C-alpha cells in the first residue's frame, strides 16, 4: 500500500469510524475544562500575587491558574502529569504509586465481581424455578439496592471485623453487594426469554426440568447475562472504591481519594479518579471482548 493511499485510508477510517466523533467531543470537553480551570482558580491566583505585592500580566495570570499546587480545579495537563508520575515514574511498590493502589482495588473488584455474579446467577435460577421465591426474595433484592452503599459499607466492615474477617474479603463483599443486582435482574429476564413454542418443544421431548434448563433456558439467557455483567463489573469497581474509603489502611483508589481530600490534594484526587475510570473502562472492555467471542460461537453475531 502506498503512503498516499495509506494516509487517505487512515482519514477515511477516522471520519467513518467511531474514533473521530469521540476525539471531537474530547477536544470540546478539554476546551471547556481549561476555561473552567482558569476562572475557578482565578481569585486564588490574584490573592497570591496581591500577597506577594507582585505586578502581574494576563499571561502571568493564565500561567498561574494552570500550575497551582492545590487548585480548586486542576488543569487537564496537571492531572496527566500526576498520572504519568504516579504510574510510570514511581516504583510500583511505592505507597504513592497508582499502580500499587490500582492493584489493590482491582483485586477487591475482581473477587467482588466473581462473588456478585455467582450470587446473582444463583438467585436468578432460584427465582425462575420457584414462584414463591420470587415473591419472597424479590422485594428484599430491590430493597437492598435502595440503601446508600456509603452508609452500609462501614457497618459491613465493622461487623465482619468482629468475626475476624479482614483484608480483602470485606471489600469484596461490598463490591459483590453492588454487582449481584444487575446480574440477577438480567439473568431472570434471560432465563424467561424462551418463547412458548421453544418450551413446548422441550415438552414434546419429555425433557426433564434440568434438561430444559441446560439446553434451553441457560443458553437463551447468555446475551442477557453479558449485558448485565458489563454493568456489574463497573459497579464492582465502584463498590471496591467505596469500601476502600472506609478501610483506607490497605490502600487502593478509594484510600487515595480519601487521603487527597484530607490534605486538599485536588490533583491527586483527580488523578485517582481518572485512573479508576480507566480501570472500569478496561474491565467493561474485557467483558465486551468475552461477549463477542461467546456470541460468535453461539451464532448470535451475523
Amino acid at each position, binding site marked *: 500500500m502506498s503512503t498516499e493511499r495509506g494516509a487517505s485510508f487512515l482519514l477515511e477510517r477516522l471520519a467513518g469510524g467511531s474514533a473521530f466523533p469521540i476525539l471531537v467531543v474530547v477536544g470540546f470537553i478539554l476546551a471547556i475544562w481549561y476555561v473552567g480551570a482558569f476562572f475557578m482558580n482565578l481569585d486564588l491566583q490574584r490573592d497570591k500575587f496581591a500577597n506577594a505585592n507582585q505586578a502581574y500580566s494576563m499571561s502571568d495570570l493564565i500561567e498561574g491558574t494552570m500550575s497551582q499546587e492545590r487548585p480548586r480545579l486542576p488543569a487537564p495537563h496537571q492531572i496527566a502529569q500526576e498520572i504519568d508520575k504516579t504510574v510510570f515514574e514511581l516504583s510500583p511498590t511505592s505507597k504513592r504509586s497508582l499502580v500499587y493502589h490500582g492493584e489493590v482495588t482491582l483485586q477487591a473488584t475482581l473477587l467482588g465481581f466473581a462473588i456478585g455474579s455467582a450470587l446473582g446467577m444463583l438467585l436468578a435460577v432460584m427465582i425462575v424455578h420457584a414462584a414463591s421465591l420470587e415473591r419472597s426474595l424479590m422485594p428484599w433484592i430491590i430493597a437492598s439496592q435502595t440503601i446508600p452503599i456509603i452508609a452500609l459499607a462501614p457497618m459491613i466492615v465493622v461487623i465482619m471485623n468482629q468475626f475476624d474477617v479482614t483484608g480483602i474479603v470485606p471489600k469484596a463483599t461490598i463490591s459483590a453487594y453492588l454487582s449481584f443486582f444487575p446480574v440477577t435482574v438480567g439473568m431472570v429476564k434471560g432465563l424467561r426469554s424462551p*418463547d412458548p*413454542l*421453544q418450551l*413446548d*418443544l*422441550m*415438552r*414434546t*421431548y*419429555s*425433557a426433564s426440568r434440568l*434438561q430444559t434448563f441446560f*439446553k*434451553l433456558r441457560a*443458553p*437463551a439467557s*447468555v446475551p442477557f447475562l453479558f449485558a448485565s455483567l458489563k454493568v456489574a463489573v463497573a459497579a464492582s469497581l465502584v463498590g471496591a472504591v467505596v469500601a476502600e474509603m472506609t478501610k483506607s489502611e490497605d490502600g487502593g483508589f478509594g484510600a487515595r481519594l480519601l487521603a487527597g481530600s484530607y490534605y486538599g490534594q485536588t490533583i491527586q484526587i483527580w488523578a485517582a479518579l481518572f485512573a479508576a475510570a480507566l480501570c472500569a473502562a478496561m474491565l467493561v472492555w474485557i467483558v465486551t471482548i468475552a461477549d463477542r467471542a461467546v456470541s460468535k460461537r*453461539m*451464532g*448470535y453475531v*451475523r
Partner: protein
Amino acid sequence: MLETTPKAQIDAVKGTARVIDISRLSLTFETSDGPVQALSEIDLAIERGEFVSLIGPSGCGKTTLLRVIADLETPTSGAITVNGLSPSEARLERAYGYVFQAPALYPWRTIARNVALPLEIMGLSKEERKERVQRNLDLVNLIGFEKRFPWQLSGGMQQRASIARALAVDPELLLMDEPFGALDEIVRDKLNEQLLRLWNKTQKTVVFVTHSIPEAVFLSTKVVVMSPRPGRIHDIIECGFARDRTLEIRETPRFLEIANRVRNGLRQGHSYVD
C-alpha cells in the same frame, strides 16, 4: 375423565392398526371472559400409515385437537388413546414428533445440533446421534448445511430442518401444525411433494393441520373438516389417491370434486352471518 379404553389396549397388544382413537372428547378453556368451548364431542379414529388433515377456519379447534393428541393440552371430558396409551404416557415414550407453525429452531445451535437436540435429551450415544442427524438431514435435502446457523437459512429450509428434527426421534406418528403456513405458494408446493414422498417412504402416520384446501386434499388419505364455535367435526372425507401421487393430480376431476366437497363443508360449518 380420561381413561384408556379396554378395546384400544387390546388392539395395542395385538399390534393392530389404530394409532389414534378419540371418542366424545371435549375441551373447555377457562378464560377471563368465562368458559370457551374449544372442542365439542370429537370422534375420530386414525389408522396406521394414514395421512389425515384437519382443516377449518381459525378458531375451529384444529390446533387444539393436535395439541391434545400431543399432551400439550388436557381435555375436559371424553376418551383419547395414542398408540393404545394415554397421551401423557405416549408423550413420555416419545411416540410422536411435533412440527410447529414456526420452525422453533434454537438460534444458538447449528442445524446439525438442532436436529440432534431431541437425541441428546433421549440420551443416545454420539455415534448414534451423528448417524441419525445425517440420515434425516438427507431425507429433507439439507446435506451440506449442518454447520450453518438457523438465520443463515431461508424460511423453507428452516422448516425442513425442523421436520428433520421431528423425524430424528424416529416416531411412528408425526403431528404437524400448519408447518408450511408461513411459506409462499411455490415453496409450499415443493415441500408438499417432498413431504408426501417422505410419508410414502417411511410409512409413518401423519396428522396435519392446515387451512389450505389444495394442500389438504393433495396430501391426505382423509380430510377432516372442522367448524368453529364450538370446535367440532363437520365432515370426514376419504380421498383415495395413489400413495405415489404427484402435483399433477390437482388437475383431475376427482381432485376437484373432493376439493369442492371440502369447500362446501367449510362453508356450511361457518357460523358467520353474511
